[in-house]
């Protein structure tokens, strides 16, 4: 058994998957931060994003980059509308908001089942072949995902940290009342926050669509991972999510490589439970909300 190959490959696999988890988790934690709503439909937006990209590429013959942009724009609008039409009444109401997103998730999933049918669809790969670093193989299709994710995350960072809208959004996350006292229009910020959050999940779906297959049931696994990430990182904390998702990707990948797959799942959830018991606020979360 070639040990360097195993370790190197496990680490790179883990980092790539970790970046995908990060895209999922940031949207999730953003929505929670803004609206105090645990968005159970988050995984379905991942699925929706995969389908939008699939339709853009296979039916409308758009290039992949354009498809990713279209996905972001389309789901931003859908998210905005859903916030205004459905979730408006539940702002700050955690339980009702959560239940309504469960229903929303079911509607989205079964809607996709009606429109697209149950068959897994396959999207043409964005890139073929691989790059080898010594014994380690880096599939081109996944390197693309890495590059795109980093670009998306950088744009998000710029928006949140260095734009007026981003600052306003962060202000709402930190304290909605003070924010509105400072003249920030929450009626604009809530839908924007939700829209951006779910659009990030959709972009993750669009990026992964050519790597995995596309079907109405693909949303549940990424949702679960997003959950784990935000619990580890601290609900509402973006740096925490970043740290936790990369950690999760690497640990999961390494555990899968060196232990058996079911063992690694057990290990992961054991870790999450320990975290909840001993540090419920997460790695970088603030306690006492």
């Amino acid at each position, binding site marked *: *058994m*070639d040990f360097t*190959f*195993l370790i190197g*490959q*496990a680490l790179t*696999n*883990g980092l790539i*998957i970790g970046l995908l988890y990060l895209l999922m988790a940031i949207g999730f934690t953003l929505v929670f931060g803004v609206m105090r709503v645990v968005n159970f439909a988050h995984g379905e937006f991942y699925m929706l994003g995969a389908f939008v990209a699939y339709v853009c590429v296979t039916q409308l013959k758009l290039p992949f980059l354009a498809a990713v942009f279209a996905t972001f724009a389309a789901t931003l609008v859908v998210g905005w509308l859903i916030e205004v039409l459905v979730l408006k009444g539940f702002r700050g109401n955690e339980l009702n908001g959560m239940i309504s997103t469960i229903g929303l998730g079911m509607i989205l999933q079964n809607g996709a*089942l009606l429109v697209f049918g*149950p*068959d*897994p*669809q*396959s999207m*043409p*790969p964005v890139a*073929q072949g*691989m790059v*080898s670093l010594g014994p380690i*193989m880096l*599939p081109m*299709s*996944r390197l693309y995902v890495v590059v795109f994710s980093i670009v998306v995350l950088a744009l998000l960072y710029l928006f949140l940290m260095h734009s007026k809208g981003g600052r306003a959004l962060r202000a709402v996350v930190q304290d909605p009342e003070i924010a509105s006292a400072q003249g920030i229009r929450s009626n604009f910020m809530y839908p924007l926050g939700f829209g951006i959050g779910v659009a990030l999940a959709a972009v993750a779906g669009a990026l992964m669509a050519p790597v*995995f*297959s596309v*079907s*109405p*049931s*693909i949303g*549940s*696994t990424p949702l679960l991972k997003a959950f784990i990430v935000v619990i580890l990182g601290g609900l509402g904390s973006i740096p925490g999510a970043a740290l936790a998702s990369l950690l999760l990707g690497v640990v*999961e*990948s*390494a555990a*899968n*490589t*060196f232990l*058996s*797959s*079911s063992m690694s*799942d057990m290990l992961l959830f054991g870790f999450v439970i320990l975290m909840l018991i001993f540090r419920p606020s997460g790695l970088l979360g603030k306690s006492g909300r």
Partner: protein
Amino acid sequence: MKKILAASLLCVTCGAFAQEELKIGAIVTLSGAGAAWGQTMLYATELAADDVNAKGGLDVGGKKYKVKVVAYDDKYQAGEAVTAANRLVFEDKVKYVIGPVGSAAALAVGPIMEKNKVIMLTLGFTDKALAADKPFSFRPNLTTMETSQPQINWIVKAKNVKKVGALFPNDETGQQIAQDLEKAYAKAGAQMTSKEFFERERVDMMPLLTRIMAKGVDAIELDGNAPGTAGLIVKQARELGFKGHIIRSGGPATAEIVNVAGVTATNGMLVNTPINPANSDVKTYADRYFAKYKKRMNGFSPAFYDGTHMLFQAMTQAGTATDTDKVRVALEGIKDFKGILGTLNWTGKDVYGSNHQISAPFYVARVQDGQEVVESTCSLSSCQ
């Protein structure tokens, strides 16, 4: 005018009275990983029903029955399958069921069917699906039990395979197939040096494949995985630079695998197939299937088309559609049935304790540019 209208109305009602409805239940997977198989079984049953309905219905004991298929989705879960079985047996009052697809589901609904004397044609690959004390369970398709040994013997010899790695879903089907294949490879003189189990929803196979490849295997076995998952395994194995053979010893899925993994990644894959592309009956059936459902059929489909027709023949021979004891005996008694797959018989007494397992020819094919090219023709004893 009025008279004609009245007469025709009368005739419509009299026609409806003369023709009774025969409901065939279907517990099939229509969403998620096993959907490709569930759909193909359901459509096979519907096409067989179309055949008899086109002739004015199924002729049983002088009565004409219009056949109607009632289908429920089991989502590849045993719990859902039990719910579906209860609905079919107690609410829809069906006496015949096609399905379920999965082994766990087949085992879970088995007792309901046996207790209520409902004849079940299941796809479930587990060896426990058929038994001496399960007189109402039949399997119209070949499973790994039947096909793996002759096929693996041939591949190991012809392709000089020594070390095999495999990934299986972590459930009844996967565990069972893993056990069978490990024995079969050992018998053929090769070794299954690494096997991995994973949860069915998993899509990222890279860590598992990394582990398998680190053991230096010269072939990866796909049997036991749902078509979509198998496609992902092939795609990701090739992306990791795997250059050895990819083998699928059972469970037809070539069209779906090619669809997911692409033409280049699947070139040279060795697959088990119940269908000889040169068989014109199957080709006609496949064209009909495509015309109606706008989809390429899965390789299991002809087996269930033949199986449903065998069931119809058994009802006609027994002269009853309601007394399933008699129909079961008639079904068991069918010999040399001329199906679209070839000549079909029941076998399985030695392995399962009852002759409820179909015996049909099958083939080993190499995938070339997305199409299967037959390399070897097999019977249940050997491949040529």
